[in-house]
């Protein structure tokens, strides 16, 4: 319960266990690559090999990461806006919810790869389609968690707002939305990674036109060259991208909830 003396110190303390496990994991990985997978770098390259591949292809890697970042970020942002707004609309009435919510579920159950031609048909043979795939992949967790949050409003508070003839909109902004924030952020955390996966799958479907292409494209290149060390570097880049989104969204959530919600008040 004691306060840390400085934010830097707090960060260090929070990061320490994660870093420890990371070092442990890298150690284990190194051990595996040096024993079981010794001489089988095409299956499991060693950390050194991956580091070398990263250094060697730094520029391409950075470019690809940036391009995937852009697509995933757009898809994610779109999913956040549409997801929260959609849930808000659905939560207005049981009827709306009953009629439309199941279709939000269906949307996420459709294997995107299978309907790829339609997506390209509707959104064009370009990055927009990649963004759309990322959007579709990340939408549902946000809708679903937001709806749960909006429906969990305490009865007493709902009555208070009803008494003061708060319009749907006012209730939404001042009561239901803030009350739903912990749930919403849980949804956003889930979707952070999905948006990156979506962008990569989208790149598989759309290719890269005439550009260099994002991580999805580079992953295929590395596979074709049997350059597993580079492949790993790219997968790690994609993973970290998703993780970055996750961290950003978690930090914002903690900031918004720190004053009042159990999950963020500290133990």
């Amino acid at each position: 319960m004691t306060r840390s003396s400085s934010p830097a110190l707090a960060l260090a303390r929070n990061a320490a266990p994660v870093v420890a496990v990371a070092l442990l994991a890298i150690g284990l990985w190194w051990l595996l690559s040096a024993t079981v997978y010794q001489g089988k770098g095409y299956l499991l390259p060693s950390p050194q090999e991956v580091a070398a591949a990263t250094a060697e292809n730094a520029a391409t890697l950075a470019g690809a990461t940036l391009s995937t970042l852009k697509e995933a970020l757009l898809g994610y942002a779109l999913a956040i806006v549409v997801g929260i707004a959609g849930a808000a609309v659905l939560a207005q009435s049981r009827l709306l919810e009953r009629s439309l919510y199941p279709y939000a579920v269906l949307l996420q159950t459709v294997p995107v790869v299978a309907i790829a031609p339609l997506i390209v048909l509707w959104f064009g043979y370009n990055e927009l389609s990649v963004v759309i795939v990322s959007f579709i992949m990340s939408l549902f967790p946000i809708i679903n968690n937001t709806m749960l949050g909006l429906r969990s409003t305490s009865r007493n508070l709902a009555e208070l707002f009803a008494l003061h003839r708060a319009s749907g909109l006012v209730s939404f902004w001042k009561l239901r939305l803030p009350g739903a924030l912990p749930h919403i952020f849980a949804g956003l955390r889930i979707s952070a990674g999905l948006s990156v996966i979506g962008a990569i799958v989208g790149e598989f479907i759309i290719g890269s036109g005439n550009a260099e292409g994002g991580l999805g494209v580079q992953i295929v290149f590395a596979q074709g060259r049997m350059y597993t060390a580079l492949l790993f570097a790219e997968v790690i880049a994609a993973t970290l991208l998703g993780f970055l989104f996750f961290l950003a969204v978690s930090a914002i959530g903690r900031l918004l909830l720190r004053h009042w919600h159990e999950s963020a008040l500290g133990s």
Partner: protein
Amino acid sequence: ADAPKPVRILSNWFAQPDQAGYWQAQQDRLGKEAGIEISVLQGGPKIQTIPQVASGQAEFGIGNADDVLLARLRGAPVRAVFAHLDYVPYTLVYHADPAVKSIADLQGRTFAVNIGNAYWEWTKKQYRLAGTREIPVSGDLSLFRNDPKMVQQGYSLFLPARMAAAGVQVQQITLASLGYKPYNVLFTTDDMIRKNPALVKATVAAVQKGWAGYVRNPQGLKPLITGMNKQMTPEIYDAANKEMIETLISHDLGRIGCMSDARWSELAGQLRSVGFLPAGFDAKQGYDRTLVPGCNS
């Protein structure tokens, strides 16, 4: 003069030598005089060129002859107009093994192939490989390297060279040697041919020039292709050119792209034999061989 009319060619893979003539046409702006500006769009692992062209995402697409016939069966109004490669360079690669004399000796192994694809269904049936284990092929080759008994589908242009570069000794059996030889084609829609035959002809003429130019100087595209496709290392690029120019492209540069009724009808027969096409299906609806200059002389 009017601005040149843009013509998009949707490729079925990232830039690589088997599409070289198209890239050449783009690079040299070969349609300029005919009033067209050709641009090639790179494909990728999940690209489906036929529905995209049929729905107008591009004017032309690159694909395999068998896919064009199957698409026709399902009503997609696409038609091959130019066959740049004599056959799709499919091959089956296995770890070097003197005991393997023919495909029959691969019976019972694990095949990484395009499951459900016509060429594989046909090969299975033709060579009685029903007892083999098949897994979907992906871009990944590490499992093949790791398993000395695995058979890997790929392009003969690239895969053996790639394996050699990685120090893996392999041998191959090409699909063509087994008798399955679909053209590699440029296709467009019926509508395009009907409403804008001049544009189609101009495009076909331009890409024919492109292919000829490429054959004359294969090194000319090397920077473009190896720059766009990181998979395409200079060594692989060179090896692929050699095989392509020797075996897959017409040595009579004026006849590049020509197709024969016999070859199409043979292909349709093969597809019928595995039930992919119904008995009454006429292969003629899949192509138009009147558009390539120099084929009827």
